[in-house]
């Protein structure tokens, strides 16, 4: 798994770690029972504070993505189907909202947008 931290994005570092680990879980790159790098190791590798790393891991545990086993490390939990669907729905919604905003700005009508969506689905063979 790769974690790449930007110091210039303005997004807090613990958020960046969380997002990237979550994405790795959603994409299947991290599987159930995979062991995350230790908090100390990750802090050292990324040259960041131990507290920042701890916070990211604690948040992931609270949100049900990983479990911390005392003295062993942080393991990836089985993927919850509901959670994955929820995440996908959120992404679709955001993408569609962007499309609607762009359509409004460009004076494109609702029916044109829906038509375009249908065409695109067809092109992608998405039934």
């Amino acid at each position, binding site marked *: 798994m790769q974690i790449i931290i930007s110091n210039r994005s303005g997004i807090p570092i613990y958020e960046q770690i969380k997002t990237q680990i979550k994405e790795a879980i959603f994409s299947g790159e991290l599987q159930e029972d995979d062991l995350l790098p230790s908090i100390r190791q990750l802090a*050292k590798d990324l*040259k960041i504070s131990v*507290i920042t790393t701890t916070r990211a891991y604690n948040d992931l545990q609270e949100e049900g993505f990983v479990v911390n086993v005392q003295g062993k490390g942080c393991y990836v939990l089985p993927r919850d189907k509901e959670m994955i669907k929820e995440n996908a729905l959120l992404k679709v919604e955001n993408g569609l909202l962007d499309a609607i905003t762009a359509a409004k700005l460009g004076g494109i009508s609702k029916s044109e947008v829906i038509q375009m969506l249908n065409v695109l689905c067809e092109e992608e063979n998405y039934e």
Partner: protein
Amino acid sequence: MNNIIEIDKLKKQYDGFALNEVSFHLQAGYIGGFVGPNGAGKTTTIKAILGIIRPDSGQVKIMGEEVKEGTAKEFIGVVMDNPFYVEDWRIKDVEAAVSPFYSQWNSTQFHSYLKQFHIQTNKKVKELSRGMKVKLQMAVALSHGARLLVLDEPTSGLDPVARDEICGMLQDFVSDENHAVLFSTHITADLEKIADFITFISDGEIWYSGTKDELLEKYVRISGNPREIPENQKARIIGYREHSTGFEGMIQATDSRQFSSKFLIEPVTLDEIIIFINKGRKNDE
């Protein structure tokens, strides 16, 4: 909680300067940054930790034991911006001079660090570059079983490569969760990276002591047109400075709702916090 440093209501009065009830602590396993403008009391506090000065009142405990003059030194490794070694000493003389002070001196370890840092034992102290002098002190500090490393301006005057190396060494040092580092510096970029906790001292008083992340999230930088500031909100701006094309300052992040999107609100750096706090104190005077 396993505190390596515990300072409680430390007072020390000098002519024209005083430490006023300084209290903070540092847990094992973590790196604490110690920041504040020049003359704020950083070095005086460090001297109290090292048992070089006697406090007027209050308490300094290292690993649970109260510091009396000359007691805790075995467990503390010290790195200053300029070492107290005699300039004409060769490196082997340095070992001969310092090792008798430490019951747990480990000569093998010392020489392995020298090798790792590429320091030749026949060189004289004065022939070492600044970075090498810092590394030599680190080698000494890491060879006598220190639990606490106290660094006073170790990275000032060092190039980015040497600073990066030293930051990595500090992270290694605390990684077994038995050691701690107190790191006083003006180069806050180093602390912004690796420090877990920040203790901020200003005019002899602790202004903040807690996690670095909380400090950096607590405040935001604000700038914009001074005429747009609602009249009752101006007092909330810390370190307010007006110039020909606008104003800048710092506000608590929770106050940012009071300011419209006409203002630029962005994350604040440690450097900016130090500057705004200092400026704020001058504005108040």
